[in-house]
C-alpha cells in the first residue's frame, strides 16, 4: 500500500513540466515517476525469489533484510518433491508440482486452441460472409459480454455435475472451449479490415470459403491471433474459481487451485512462507517464460484488444 502512494501523486503533475527546455527537470521527475512504477511492478517478483531462497527459521529475524536470509534452495527442493519435507520451520506440505504443471498446461492449451480457432471461424462468418440474420446473431453473442460470469457459473456447475464430468479435464475446459464473446468480437474487428480484393481474386481462382479461411484470413491475421491466444492463455492459466469448483481433485488439479490448497494447509501460526514463495514463483514461471519469448508482439498489440 505504502509503496503505491508516490506514483499516485506523481501521475498528474510531472507531465506538466516535461517540455521546459533549459533544464528538463520536469522530464526527470516524469522519468522518476515511471521508474517508481516499474520498480513497484518488479519488486514482488524479486521478493518471491528472495523469500524462496531464505529459510523459514531465519525469516522472522531477518525480516528487514533485502537479501535472502539463511541462503538455501531447500524450499524449492521441498516444493518440487526432490527432498522429503522435514517439518522444520512450521510446514510439511509439499506440492505435486509436475502433476499440477501438466494439468495447467493441458487445460490452458486446450482452452486456448479451441477458443481461438472456433472463435476465429465464427468471426469469419460474422465479418466476411453474407447471410440473413447475421447482425442479429452477432448482437446476441455480444450481449453475453455483459453477463457476470458467476451468473452462469452456478448453472454450468450443475450441468457439468449432471453430465458426470466433475473432476475431469473436460469439466475445466468445456465452458471456454468453443468461444467467448470477447474472442469473437476481437477477431471480427480484424477480419473486417482485410480488403475484399484479396479475397475476391482468390475466389476467381476457384478457392472456397474453407480455403480462403485457412490460406488467406488466418495467415494474414497472425498477429491479432497470437495476441488473443496469449491473452486467452493468461486468463486460462490464472483462472481459479472455475477449476476450484469442478476440478479440485488431485489428478486434474491445476496450479492455481494447488496453491490455494497449499496455502490452506500451511499453519496459521508459523506459515511456510519460504515454501509458499517458492511455489508461487514456480507457478508464475511458465507464463513469464512464454512472455519473454513472444511478449514483444503481445505488448505491441495489446491495445487493440480493449478498444475497437
Amino acid at each position, binding site marked *: *500500500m505504502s*509503496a*503505491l502512494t508516490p*506514483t*499516485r501523486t506523481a*501521475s498528474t503533475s510531472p507531465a*506538466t*513540466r*516535461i517540455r521546459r527546455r533549459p533544464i528538463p527537470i*520536469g522530464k526527470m521527475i*516524469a*522519468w522518476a*515517476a*515511471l521508474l517508481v*512504477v*516499474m520498480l513497484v511492478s518488479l519488486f*514482488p517478483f524479486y521478493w518471491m525469489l528472495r523469500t524462496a531462497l531464505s529459510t523459514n527459521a531465519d525469516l522472522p529475524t531477518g*525480516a528487514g533484510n533485502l537479501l535472502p536470509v539463511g541462503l538455501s534452495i531447500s524450499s524449492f527442493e521441498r516444493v518440487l518433491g526432490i527432498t522429503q519435507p522435514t517439518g522444520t520451520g512450521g510446514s510439511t506440505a509439499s506440492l505435486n508440482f509436475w502433476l499440477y504443471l501438466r494439468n495447467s498446461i493441458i487445460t490452458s492449451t486446450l482452452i486456448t486452441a479451441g477458443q481461438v480457432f472456433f*472463435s476465429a*471461424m465464427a468471426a469469419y*462468418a460474422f465479418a466476411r*460472409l*453474407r*447471410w440473413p440474420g447475421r447482425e442479429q446473431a452477432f448482437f446476441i*453473442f455480444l450481449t453475453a459480454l*455483459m*453477463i*457476470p*460470469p*458467476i*451468473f452462469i457459473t*452456478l*448453472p*454450468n456447475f450443475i450441468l457439468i455435475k449432471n453430465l458426470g464430468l466433475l473432476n475431469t479435464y473436460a469439466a475445466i475446459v468445456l*465452458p471456454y472451449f*468453443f*468461444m467467448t464473446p470477447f474472442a*469473437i468480437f476481437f477477431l471480427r*474487428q*480484424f477480419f*473486417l*479490415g482485410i480488403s475484399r480484393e484479396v479475397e*475476391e481474386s482468390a475466389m476467381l481462382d476457384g478457392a472456397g470459403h474453407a480455403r480462403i479461411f485457412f490460406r488467406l484470413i488466418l495467415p494474414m491475421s497472425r498477429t491479432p491471433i497470437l495476441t488473443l491466444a496469449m491473452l486467452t492463455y*493468461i486468463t486460462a*492459466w490464472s*483462472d481459479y474459481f472455475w477449476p*476450484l*469448483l469442478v476440478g479440485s481433485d488431485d489428478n486434474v488439479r491445476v*496450479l*492455481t487451485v494447488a*496453491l490455494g490448497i497449499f496455502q490452506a494447509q500451511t499453519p496459521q501460526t508459523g506459515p511456510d*512462507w519460504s515454501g509458499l514463495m517458492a511455489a508461487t514463483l514456480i507457478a508464475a514461471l511458465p507464463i*513469464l517464460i512464454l*512472455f519473454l519469448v513472444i511478449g514483444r508482439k503481445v505488448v505491441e498489440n*495489446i*491495445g*487493440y484488444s*480493449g*478498444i*475497437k
Partner: protein
Amino acid sequence: MTTTLRPSPRTKPGNRSRPDKGSTPARKRSVRRPRTDLRAALIFITPAAVGFIAFFLVPAVLGIGYSFTDYRVFGPVNFVGLDNYAALFQDPLFWNALGVTLEYVVINIVVQTVLAVGVAVLMHRLTRSIVVRGIILLPYLVANVVVALVWFWIFDYSSGIANQVLAFFGVHPVSFFGSDVFAIPTIALVNVWRFMGYTALLIFAGLQTIPKEYYEAASLDGATENRMFWGITLPLLRPVLALVLVISVVGSFQIFDTVAVTTKGGPVNATRVIYYYIYELAFEKFKFGYASAISVVLLVILAAISLIQLRILRADKSDLG
C-alpha cells in the same frame, strides 16, 4: 528538442485506418458471388454457437429459473416464487456483501484508473520503449492467486517487509489483511498492482489514436502540458476511457480469488464480498436457489451501472472531428 511529439515509429497505418472500413464492409460488385453464404456461414458458426447455447444462453436462462426455486442440488426442487428475493432484502449479510464489494470497487477503480491514465500519459510523452511497457505489463501475467499470496506475505503483520519499512519510519505495524478497516483497501490495492499495467497499455493504445497535429498546434499557441492534458488528451481519450472503465468495473465486481486465499471473508464479515458470499451459499450451504437470486440481482446491478456509465461518458461518440 523535445522527443515527446515524435511520430510513433511502430504505428501500423493499416490497423489505424481499420474502423471506418470496418463499420461498412466494402460492398464492391462481387465477382460472381452467390447472393448469400448461408451454408458456409452455418458451418463456420456451428462450434461457437454450440458453445454459446450450451454454456452461456441456457445457463443464463436456467440461472433465472433457479432463482425462483429452493434448489439445493440434493433433494426435490420446489417453486418458491419470489421468496428468495424477499429473503434477500431481509438478509443483512447480503447488504453487507454489497457494501463491502462497492467499497472495494470504488477504491480499486479510482486508484487504478488514475494511475493507469498517469502511466499511459507518461509513456506517451516519454518513451515507446517495449521494455518499459513489458515491465509495466508484467504483473498482469501472474495469476490472482499468486498475486494474493505474494502481497499477503509482503503485508504480513510480524515479518512482512511492508511493516519493516513502516517500523523504520517509526510507524506501528499495521495488520493490513487482519483489520476490518484496512482489509478491503489492501485487497483493492493488491489488485490495482495486477491490473494497472494492462489498463495503462489499453489507454496508451488509445492515446496513439490522437493526431499529433493537435499537440503541435496547441504548443505553437503556447499551451502547457497541463492544459494539453485537460484540453486535448482527456476529451479525446473519453471513448476509450469509457470502454476501459465499463470493462474494469464489471471485472472489479468479480473480486473473489484474492479474498479466497487470504482473508476468506474475514475479519468477521469485513471482506465477505458478493462473489465470496454467493460461493459460500452455493458450495458450502448448497443454497443454489438463493445464491442464484443474488446472482440475478448482481446481473441487474451490473447492467444498470454499465448503462449509466456509457450514458454519462457518451462512449459511442468521439470528440474527434
